[in-house]
């Protein structure tokens, strides 16, 4: 017979075991919550996404799913509910969605409200030529979506009548274009455009001031703002050059080619050669003593 004391101990042990095991089982299993979000607000999503620690490990990379509610409230989309943009949101957790589905959704997320911009984007080289049901080719998959340029997407500012936001956007050339076009970003180094722009000159042209923004075309396309037939209009736009003629427009060839022209310069090559020789001599001397 168990004594009353031993019985009490065994009951307590059993309760403790059950208390530890239940959460452990819950963690081990993929949780499946069925819940309904309020459609007229963000508070439902922010219950989880307002947590700074919310995230997921993808490989060895931590992907944060935190959304800063303050930024969102100050953004141009403060009045839009989460599902207004995240139109694929399913009432299941943890929202596992295939990558291609996400891409397709992202293409459409902005379209509902920004129809003109969508149409303009669809005419440019960044437009993704894939239909629902089709697989994305490797080339198409690298093309940017609205949110790739307009990032961080939760902090998009209202630009109309907002010079501060316009100025902020103006200087985001690297984030918007440079991350995908590093060579073009690096070569944007001529005296009065690129070198100044990259050092925060607000009066220097950003990428899209010349290349256009939503309807970006290859410069070989006659519709491109940088096609030789259109250069006078592009360089002569308000706030830039007044009346550039054909000779003057030749400078445009230097905008992304300064380093190239410099490398071809015989004097530069001579100086560079002398510099390398001197460095070589010093390197040899240094090698004697090390």
């Amino acid at each position, binding site marked *: 017979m168990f004594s009353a004391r031993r019985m009490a101990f065994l009951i307590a042990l059993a309760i403790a075991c059950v208390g530890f095991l239940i959460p452990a089982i819950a963690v081990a299993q993929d949780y499946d919550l069925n819940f309904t979000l309020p459609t007229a607000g963000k508070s439902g999503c922010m219950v989880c996404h307002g947590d700074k620690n919310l995230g997921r490990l993808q490989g060895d990379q931590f992907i944060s799913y935190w959304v800063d509610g303050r930024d969102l409230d100050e953004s141009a989309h403060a009045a839009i509910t989460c599902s207004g943009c995240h139109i694929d949101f399913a009432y299941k957790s943890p929202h596992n969605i295939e990558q291609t589905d996400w891409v397709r959704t992202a293409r459409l997320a902005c379209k509902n409200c920004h129809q003109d911009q969508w149409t303009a984007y669809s005419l440019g080289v960044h437009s993704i030529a894939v239909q629902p049901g089709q697989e994305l080719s490797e080339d198409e998959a690298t093309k940017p979506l609205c949110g790739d340029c307009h990032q961080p997407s939760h902090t998009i500012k209202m630009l109309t009548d907002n010079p501060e936001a316009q100025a902020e956007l103006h200087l985001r050339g690297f984030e918007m274009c440079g991350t995908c076009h590093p060579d073009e970003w690096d070569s944007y180094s001529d*005296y009065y455009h690129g070198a100044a722009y990259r050092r*925060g*000159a607000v*009066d220097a042209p950003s990428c899209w001031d010349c290349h256009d923004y939503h309807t970006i075309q290859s410069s070989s396309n006659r519709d491109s703002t940088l096609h030789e037939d259109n250069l006078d209009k592009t360089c002569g736009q308000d706030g830039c050059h007044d*009346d550039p*003629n054909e000779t003057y427009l*030749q400078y445009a*060839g230097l905008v992304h080619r300064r380093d190239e022209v410099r490398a071809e310069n015989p*004097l530069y090559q001579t100086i560079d050669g002398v510099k390398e020789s001197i460095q070589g001599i010093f390197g040899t001397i240094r090698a004697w003593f090390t």
Partner: protein
Amino acid sequence: MSEIDILDFNVWLDYVFTTVYVVMLIALCGHFVGNILTGRLKRRFRNWEWPHHDGPPIPFLPKFMHFQHVFSMIVLALTGLYIRFPGFIFGGWDNARTFMRYAHYVAMIVVTINLIWRLWYAFASARRDYREFAITKQDVVTAPKVILYYIFVKPSKPHLGKYNIMQKAVYIAFAPMLIIQAYTGFALVTNPFLFGESPRFWLLGGFLPFVESVDLIGWYARIAHYILNWLFIMFTTIHVYLSVSEDFPAFLNFFGLSVFDRENTAAHDDHGHKDTHGVDHEHAPSPILND
């Protein structure tokens, strides 16, 4: 200009002038070594023997104008080079170009006013001193001797007045250079605040029917402005070097940092007799104002 010219020309200018400037600095270092080897440096800085100054003291006004000219030109050079080479100084300062532009504008206005003031002082004031800068026939005749002195072939140079011919030539050249620099500088301002048009439009003849592109002329103006900038930098570097190495007391005096010690400097006068080191100074027919 053809395409290759307009593309390459900017790059050529950068490398030609930086190379020439480095060569010039090396030459000045060589000249400094020459001063050491010939004993000139020791006589000047150790024995404190400098050219004789027996003229009236330099008035405050030209010193003041010179000082603010120096200050403004340094500002112009630094800000101007920043405008052309963003980031060569203050690299991490966002949107520094706007500040540099406005600093450049302010300094160019100061220099322009200063230039007008100095020209008035030289030609129209009670103490007009334009004659001190005039190149005479004697200056031209003795010019080779001045050059030979500076390249250490001759131990002394003829003193014909307050400035020698090389100084006069450079100081005279500064006036038109400054005028052209100011003109081309104002011609680079594209803000339309003059009757709805920019200074560029008015100064480069945008209103003339045969002007095809003010932008293109503006490009030529920019090139001229840039070339003159380098000439100013080079001339000023030589000017500072020679001011310090040839007549340091005058250099200090010009900035109000000292008064001439006439007793010491008198040992190195130029009245056709040998000084304490046996250097034979040639006779000067005019009053010696070797400031």
